[in-house]
């Protein structure tokens, strides 16, 4: 089978520009996000809430090392009807992030913009400008399944799946430049798209989120602590 020969001009005018553009967009993204984002302010009360929740959990888990009187005193301190921190925290009026609060809105908007604009605008532009090129080839054979991933925008049935199209090359660069950003910008950078995406996933998945309604967490912890049977382990 004769090998496919690529025009050197594709290297100069498609392959390299995509790498360079993706890289500089990342850098730009980093600095713009530095400019727009103000540091997340955590309220002192939120910290205390988290600490008390943690403490209730620790008491449940490690309370078995304490004598019964000590355990009960601590449980009383946390759960007592009127004075216990957990009980009081359940009575507090709900705060949470108010979707109507304009400052919250802009914060959310900024975050979304930082993610969406590069994705849509740059991705679309690259797709439009550089579409339809076969840019490079991965140096190992791949199965047919990879065609959808590596040859977006080039629908040739007979093309070997090791070839990479320009649109796919853009995505590969976008996700693969993380270590280079770390090299250039240091480890705490906001340039990386894939990291932002991971953050979003983690946000929806994680259980303890300081912004989420703490009352439910307090209620759960309060119930669990009430249920705990003390058994001296030593």
């Amino acid at each position, binding site marked *: 089978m004769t090998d496919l020969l690529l025009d050197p001009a594709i290297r100069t005018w498609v392959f390299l520009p995509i790498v360079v553009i993706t890289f500089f967009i990342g850098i730009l993204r980093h600095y713009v996000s530095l400019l727009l984002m103000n540091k997340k302010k*955590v309220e*002192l009360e939120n*910290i*205390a809430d988290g*600490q*008390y929740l*943690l*403490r209730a959990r*620790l*008491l449940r888990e*490690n*309370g078995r*090392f*304490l*004598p019964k009187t*000590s355990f009960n005193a*601590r449980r009383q301190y946390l759960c007592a009807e009127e004075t216990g921190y957990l009980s009081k925290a359940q009575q507090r009026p709900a705060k949470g992030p108010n979707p109507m609060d304009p400052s919250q809105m802009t914060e959310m908007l900024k975050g979304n913009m930082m993610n969406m604009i590069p994705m849509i605008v740059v991705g679309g532009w690259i797709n439009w400008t550089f579409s339809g090129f076969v840019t490079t080839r991965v140096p190992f054979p791949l199965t047919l399944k990879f065609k959808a991933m590596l040859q977006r925008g080039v629908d040739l049935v007979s093309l070997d799946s090791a070839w990479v199209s320009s649109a796919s090359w853009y995505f590969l660069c976008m996700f693969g430049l993380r270590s280079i950003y770390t090299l250039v910008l*240091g480890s705490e950078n906001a340039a990386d798209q894939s990291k932002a995406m991971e953050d979003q996933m983690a946000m929806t998945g994680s259980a303890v989120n300081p912004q989420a309604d703490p009352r439910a967490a307090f209620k759960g912890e309060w119930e669990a602590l009430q249920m705990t049977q003390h058994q001296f382990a*030593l």
Partner: protein
Amino acid sequence: MFSKLIQEFFPRDMTTETDWTQISFEEGRQTLKKWRECGVRRSEEVVEIWEHVISRSSASLGDERWAVLEQVCIAALDSARVDLAQECIDQLHAQFPKSNRVLKLKAMQFESTEHYKNALEIYDRLVEDDPNNNSYRKRRVAVLLAQGKRLDAIKAINDYLKIFLNDPEAWLQLHELFLQENDIAKAVHCLEECVLIQPLNSMYFRRLGDLRYTQGGAENIDYARRYYERALKINPTDLRSQYGILLSNNQIASTTKNAAEKKKAGLAAVEAIDELVNRYQKVSPQNNPESDGILNCLEAMKVTVGSK
């Protein structure tokens, strides 16, 4: 044998003397990084590494330089090198003129020269500015301790613990303060908090055992024995817990009315003595000149305990 024991008790780099003035730049950098991250207090070595190795080409540290400067500054204050600390603070201040972290270093400098009032003023301002940062509050307690104001320090730690109540360091400090005030019950409470937070630290259990033993009474001695056993289980080389087991069992054997209990405690005490004898026999007399005397003492004790 001797070296093996030493290895057991001390990590390697404490016995093999390293000449910190002769190491390479990269090595010094790595060492400082390690110590900085683990929070090791080896101030004089840090100052040595800085002066002889790193400071010659500190520009090549890049951004790490500021963290190193902060570390060196604290180490310099700790080893009474006022000149070096001033130098570090000046450099940091030039780079970060409005930083709270640099301000904290300045306050620590005031502390080291015993200008406690100025230091407290700065800390108060810092706490007000950033109430979430617990290090400023902790420094304030440290100032009160240095001034010897125990009751004020207790009050300050109490306030601190109302918010950051999962800080074992603070609970341990409070425990020591209560001990100095001879308030054993409260000290026990503080230690129990530490146990809740870090249930695998044998020191907390051992100290709890000590305190319960000191409080006395059948129930407390029983707790003491359990705590000592727990401490020994976590850390089998803990000699003091072994002694604790011996003493508490001995106490139980001589006070309890229950015959079966008495016998059991007596046997456990003898077992503890055997274990101790075993430990001391492994130490050569050159290493610990006291060991012969202790051995004799233990043997004599074994006779009296066994006869009960």
